[in-house]
């Protein structure tokens, strides 16, 4: 029998699974499809911008969380967890990432946000970045050579270099033939990255880069430095160039995000945790709470090729389905917005006219994106009065209330922190039940 069933295969679900499985829990992850990580840049955004003021990015996000956020937004997931638990969770992620061959690093000054270049040449705050992105750190001032490939859509090296130069980062652009990456007529970055798994192709790319790079320049590339063999490909290119080499992430399908997902799933499988896609939960069976006694989730069922749903029974359940941008919530034209698995109450205005503020890029964000499932400090869902709804249900990631992760640039930080803390809480609940018997 499964101890823990996790619904959702994004970063929060996978980190919960990892933490719980490591603590000896029999864990299973099911998901409607694969998402989240494949859409993002593969970095760990912890906290980029304070709400309401779209000016300078936050320099030290953990300090900001400890000193400001916990006071100003005590209901936000970070405030519920506290800076210490968040820092410990990030350490756990970094250790795991290194173990699975995808080392992540922070800024040269510990605790600072990194500023990394985007494909538009803007500076983007993030807290941890994969080894292959860290070299783009804009705190360094050594000049950049931004290299594109002829015909690669979504990556225009002149645009990147010109915009960076305007912001005081010396940069110039160059374009190499696409044939260095792939023989395909039409390809996406994942296929180009897979091309760089091949040592002979890498040698050709290195030869071409050596022709155009000037001494002292660091080299910025689209995310093409290998897929299955990424660590090897990156280290080899950087070593042979004798220069800093870095990738700039692009639109989905995201190469750095896919690398992280693939490595995490393989690691979980090796730990005995299945991560099954194609399993959309369509029913949940629970006994509701009464008075001060919380309810109990008995099982959920996912859709199959027959009218017979597939039943998943477990001791404890974790909702990691994402918020309104994931698949966790649905809405109708009347302004109703609901959580799709357990129909948990949402802190979203139930009137459509109140979902949005005027102006798409409103610096205050939009109420509909900040809404979600309210939880207690243990990340268990609660009602408006703070009463526990189900004794064996936890909620992690972007489904949580009081958190506009896109506005704040906090998507992965929330996923990792809540995933690790919930995973630990699940293991503790298990120990608690052992003592009880």
């Amino acid at each position, binding site marked *: 029998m499964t101890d823990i069933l996790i619904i959702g295969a994004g970063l929060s679900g996978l980190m919960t699974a990892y933490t719980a499985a490591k603590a000896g829990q029999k864990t299973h992850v099911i*998901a*409607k*499809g*694969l*998402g*989240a990580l*494949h*859409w993002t840049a593969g970095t760990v955004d912890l906290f980029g911008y304070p709400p309401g003021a779209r000016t300078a990015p936050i320099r030290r996000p953990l300090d900001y969380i400890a000193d400001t956020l916990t006071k100003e937004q005590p209901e936000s997931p970070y405030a519920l967890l506290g800076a210490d638990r968040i820092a410990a969770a990030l350490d756990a992620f970094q250790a795991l990432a290194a173990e699975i061959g995808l080392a992540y690093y922070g800024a040269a000054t510990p605790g600072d946000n990194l500023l990394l270049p985007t494909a538009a040449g803007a500076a983007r705050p993030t807290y941890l970045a994969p080894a292959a992105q860290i070299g783009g750190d804009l705190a360094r001032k050594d000049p950049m050579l931004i290299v594109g490939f002829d015909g690669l859509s979504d990556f225009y090296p002149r645009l990147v270099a010109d915009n960076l130069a305007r912001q005081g980062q010396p940069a110039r652009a160059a374009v190499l033939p696409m044939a260095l990456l792939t023989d*395909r*007529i*039409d390809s*996406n970055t*994942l*296929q180009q990255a*897979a091309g760089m798994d091949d040592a002979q192709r890498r040698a050709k790319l290195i030869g071409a880069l050596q022709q155009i790079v000037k001494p002292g320049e660091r080299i910025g590339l689209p995310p093409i430095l290998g897929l299955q063999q990424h660590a090897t490909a990156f280290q080899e290119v950087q070593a042979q160039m004798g220069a800093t080499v870095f990738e700039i992430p692009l639109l*989905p*399908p995201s190469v750095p995000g*896919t690398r992280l997902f693939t490595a995490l799933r393989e690691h979980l*499988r090796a730990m005995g945790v*299945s991560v*099954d*896609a*194609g*399993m*959309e939960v369509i029913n949940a069976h629970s006994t509701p709470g009464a008075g001060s006694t919380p309810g109990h989730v008995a099982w959920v069922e*996912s*859709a*199959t*090729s*027959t*009218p*017979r749903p*597939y039943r998943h029974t477990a001791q404890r359940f974790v909702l990691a389905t994402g918020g309104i941008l*994931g*698949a966790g919530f649905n809405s109708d034209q009347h302004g109703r917005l609901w959580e799709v698995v357990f129909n948990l109450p949402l802190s979203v205005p139930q009137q459509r006219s109140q979902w949005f503020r005027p102006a798409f890029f409103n610096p205050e964000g939009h109420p509909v994106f900040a809404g979600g499932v309210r939880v207690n400090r243990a990340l268990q869902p609660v009602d408006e009065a703070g009463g526990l709804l189900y004794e064996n249900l936890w909620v992690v990631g972007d489904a949580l209330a009081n958190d506009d992760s896109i506005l704040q640039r906090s998507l992965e930080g929330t996923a990792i922190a809540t995933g690790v803390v919930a995973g630990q809480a699940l293991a503790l609940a298990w120990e608690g039940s052992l003592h009880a018997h």
Partner: protein
Amino acid sequence: MHTESWLSAGTTLDECIKCNICTSYCPVAAVTDLFPGPKYVGPQAQRFRENGQIEMPDHAVDYCSGCRVCNEVCPTGVRISEINARARAQIVAKKGIPFRNRILARNATIARMGMIVPSLANFVMHNAFFRGIGEKVMKVAAKAPMPYWSTQGTFTDWMRHTAPRRLKSDKKVVYFHGCATESYEPYVGKAAVLVLEHNGYEVIVPPQGCCGLPLLSNGEFGTARKWHDDNLARLAGFARAGFPIVGTSTSCILTLQEEAPELLDIHSEPQQALGAATYDIFEWLRELHAKDELKTDFKPLKMVMPYHQPCQYRAHNIGAPSADIMGLIPDLDLRNGHLRCCGIAGTYGYKTEKYDIAMAVGEELFRYVKSQGSDVQMTACDSETCRWQLEHGTDLPSRHPIEIVATAYGLYDLEKRRELGM
């Protein structure tokens, strides 16, 4: 003009957020430029298709193998594979079906014809000269892995001959054997019967025809409908009477349950009953096990066994029941590489223009099997054409998991593929 409604495909179409996860995981797009990817020929091109349209927006959709990996990974639930199947049918309805595809889609008929003189059929089908002609004239790849017709009669022959010693019981289960078990691999059916009887069930094998999947995947929906209706008429009565209908061919079962009704817009009461009563045999055995009713007197089977769960089996969305049951066998070192597809995809890999693509798709699976060490004597896989492709790509024999379970029960010779003690 296609005559089917686009309803089920159309309602999920608008859920596409263009994230390209389907294209990232598509095993065909990964190896050829001829298929741009599910998003492009599916939800994207679908915007330009409608009833009565004179020109189709693209023909690359014919390179979709129908493996349904796109459906599996899509985060928003778009039925991409069904959109593609309908688009192909639309092209076939307008341009007609190529003669070669017409023949391949009728593999049930070929299977029956070969059984008239199986040794002659085997000689022709495995003779380089005739295969060369087949490739030139018919565009059927000369190297593609053809099965051997059974020289010991069909599966239903065996059921007839052994009728006196077949188990009679109050507990009954209906077996859908599919064309491949009937004519090529009767031993798979025998293994299934042995396992079911060992668990105390009498096995009923009603008259049955091809599920129609090869017709559906070659875009010939009209004939598929007729064949499916025939099966529906023969099986719905059993379903209504409460008999479970189990099958060893994962794609035939999926067709009876979902693919045919979905693509052919059949939502009748008999179809509902059939869908609810039909099981992959291991899904059903797993339910027995959950009720503590599965016999677990398995003998140890000390083997390293690379296992491939076919894409059409994963599309049942029930996890990996055969791996779950094989996991109960002591000493069996089952290794699931979780690879996307073997490449053959039913009739796809038999087509000259698609053979190389199918082999390139299967390469990661073949490599995985070869990387499991020299102790590996055979592989396990639930689907017939996938087993033939696996054997072709690895030079190792491949077995249906039901043969492995029958062996662990001490009823079956896994190497010689025959029941023990007969």
